[in-house]
């Protein structure tokens, strides 16, 4: 189980990273996060959708309504240029945290 703060901090980069490979809709995003994380990250709708709305207002995403093959109306999100920049900066931050932690943890096998 991942702590609440860490989940909150990681949602934005994860969403942006998922959408970089193409547009997608909310339900599918939750499924993909679940698959990728091997089930450790299980997002709820009440977290994702408000966040999507926020990112859209912030100009990082663009959403549009599309009818799927099953005839269901779905809102698909696409990443914008601003979103790409944001993701790049997020990526750099996460990488440096990751590097620091990796260096710190390497000589401490006892942690296993």
């Amino acid at each position, binding site marked *: 189980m991942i702590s609440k703060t860490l989940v909150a901090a990681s949602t934005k980069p994860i969403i942006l990273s998922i959408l970089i490979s193409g547009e997608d*809709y*909310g*339900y599918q995003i939750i499924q993909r996060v679940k698959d990728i994380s091997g089930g450790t990250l299980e997002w*709820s*709708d*009440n*977290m994702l*959708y*408000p*966040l999507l*709305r*926020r990112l859209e*207002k*912030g100009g990082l995403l663009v959403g549009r*309504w599309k009818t799927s093959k*099953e005839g*269901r*109306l*779905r*809102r698909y999100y696409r990443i914008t240029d601003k979103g790409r920049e944001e993701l790049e900066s997020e990526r750099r931050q996460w990488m440096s945290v990751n590097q620091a932690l990796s260096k710190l943890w390497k000589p401490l096998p006892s942690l296993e």
Partner: protein
Amino acid sequence: MFDLEKEIRNWLKALRRSEDLEDSDIAELESHLRDEIDHQIKKGVDKEAAFRAALEKSAPADILGQEYEKAKLYERTRPFWHPSRIMPSLIWSYIKISLRAIKRQKGFSLINIAGLAVGMAICILILIWVQDELSYDQFHANSDRIFRVIEHEGLSSGEVLSYTQQSPALGPVLKSEYPEILESVRYDSMSNRLVQYGDQKFYEKGFSFVDSEFLTVFTFPLKVGNPETALKDPASIVISERMAKKYFNQSDPMGKVLRIDNRVEYTVSGVLENVPENSHLKFEFLAPFATIKQFGQTIDGWYDFYLDIYVLLAENVDYHDVNAKVRNVISKHSKKDSFTVDLQPLNRIRLFSNTILTPQVEGDIKYVVIFSLVAVFILLNACINFMNLATARSGRRAKEIGMRKVIGASRRQLIRQFFGESILTAFISLIIAMGLVYLLLPAFSQLSGKHMSFSMLAQGNVLLGLLGITLFAGLISGVYPALVLSAFQPVTVLKRIINSGTRGTSFRRILVIFQFMMTSVLIIAMFVVFQQLNFLRKQDMGFAKDQVVCIQLPRDLTPKVDLLKTSFEKIPEVTGTSSASAIPGRRRALTSLDEWEGRGSEDRIELGIIDVDEDFLSLFDLEMVEGRFYSREFPSDKDEALVVNQAAIRVMSMENPQGKKVIGKRIVGVIKDFHMRSLHYKVAPLALILNKKESRVVFIKIMTSNPSQTIASLESCWSSIAPEYPFEYRFLDEDLEQLYQGDRHLGKVVNASAALALFVACLGLFGLASFVAEQRTKEIGIRKVLGASVPEIFSLLSRDFIKWVLIANAIAAPIAGYAMTKYLNTYAYHSNLGLVSFALPVILTLIVALLTIGWQVLRAAWSDPVRSLRYE
């Protein structure tokens, strides 16, 4: 039976109850739910179980709502308890509060709005005036390529004289020798030509002679006729619409014949639109240049300087380069080697000609600057009132400010609110100011000697100016309240720690002092100008100017001058007559003199010349200091004798002038200096030449208690000798008054602006005084109860104001002293800056200030202590 759609509808209904969820959010959540249900069904459960499972995974409606709300707030990148930058819903509230504040403080708002309106009205008037001054000669299509030729002459004293008058030969030479000069046009205006059509005869001003290219170089459009050819025919004449109406009324003027001075006939070949007021060239008739010969002027040669020359340069030519080339054109062609020439741009003629000796200079950039400054002064005064009253009354608003802050207003919002309020006030003032301008415009037109109409406001840059003035007034007035009031700490304000009114006292003091200083400067200026005008009127011109009638003499009548004189002298009220080439004080011919006995080889002076007869001395009560005046006893005087004034002797540095040779004649007498020009100028060297052939004016000295009867006898005398010329006369003293018309205009403007500045300053003082009286009501009550008398309380309350006014005067004195000394130095003869000029403003401002605050203060002093002590 489980109905999935119904359950979903119920679920949606719950969602819709949340305020934070929008329809699109709900649609998206529904889509999500359905996906989840499908997913569950695929796993093999029935619809009901799938729905329950999906619902389990999803949050309840209220939680969802909260999450969305949080996300929304987060978007603003500020904590939710901070107000947003712009709250459109509050704008109406601001306007309401502003109007309410204006309404609730009627007296103060009145002072603010009245003051601002007056200030703005003055600004607008001056703006129109400045706009008009700057628009001079801009209407010509080629205005940036037209230049006037100026010539400079160095005197041996080191002084350089600049003239516009050129010799006729220069015009064609400029055009033929310099490829950059496309056209050159000669222009000379003669006043008082007698124009006749049928039996209508009038003396006309603005009769001008021009080269035929004049109408193509300048843009004076013709209503009828072709500008290219209208002046080609030597007997053609172009007249203004005004004149066409005057002489021909409804009938077609083209082809009609006008007779000038009873001799020369012209055929009308074109009708001009009336010359715009903002043209420095003013004329009603344009005749071909060559015909000026018939009016006694040469049309060729290098030595007769009387006409103006304008040139049109080729496109993309820098006139400075041309200046360098034409500089020595005169010395190249004539013996006048001390003359240089340069070009003055057309659009500088109106405002930048004060160093050039030209027949009339009306505009001056100095006046434009001074009036603009005065306008800004008065507007500033009004703004200061606003600031003062706003800060003084800040206590009243303090609670409102505190409340707004507690509820969550940011400082920025308050600043915007106060600026909004002051700008709103400024706009209300603007409307009133426009009304004032409309009412004042006729008076202002008269004051400034300019024809102005309300429609001048409709020009683009004037409108921009109006907007600028309004915003300026609004921002300046609002700056202090906006910055200071908005900085109030809500706690201190609401706990009444700030005693309303004590805030900004020193700031207010400085503003009031500043205000009164400006006013005082204007009042001192008013006194000095008044004194100087008085001085000009009273100053002895050195010749007798009272009871002298002047009659212009047409050239044709000069042979009859003696006949006229003798027949005038037969009238019993006439005590003497004389004739001369010019009116004393008015104008004179100038020549540069470089030939006299005992002259140093490089000496060169400017010598004025007036042609007179033998009676000139006695008629004007002039005095000889040496030798004698012309006399009929010496018939050879006409050719050999010369009388000069003391100034001429001085500049020629002659020891024993009598008998010395100058301009081919011998000096027989030296006349005491008298003023041949206005008192702006020093008495200049002058030669009086006995030459009746150049008589242009007849002077008649009368001694009568019934002038109109005497004039009637003069007229009957005139018409028996010269029936073909109308009888037109002027009194010399009235004529001389016109020399100072410009000065009187200035005087009036200074008076008006000083009065207005004082009025606006007093408005502010009145407001402050009433405020102070109100503030100290309780204190006064206590003092009265303890035994203070009314005079004591009066002096207590007015002491501060008096101190401020005195300090203001003390600061104003040196500033005004400096400025006024500069002003007086523009006159060669002027009154002195007396102590009176400085003492009077002090007394005046003090009295006015006391009167202004008096009522408020007395009311406070007289008030019943019982009431005031109960007052809260």
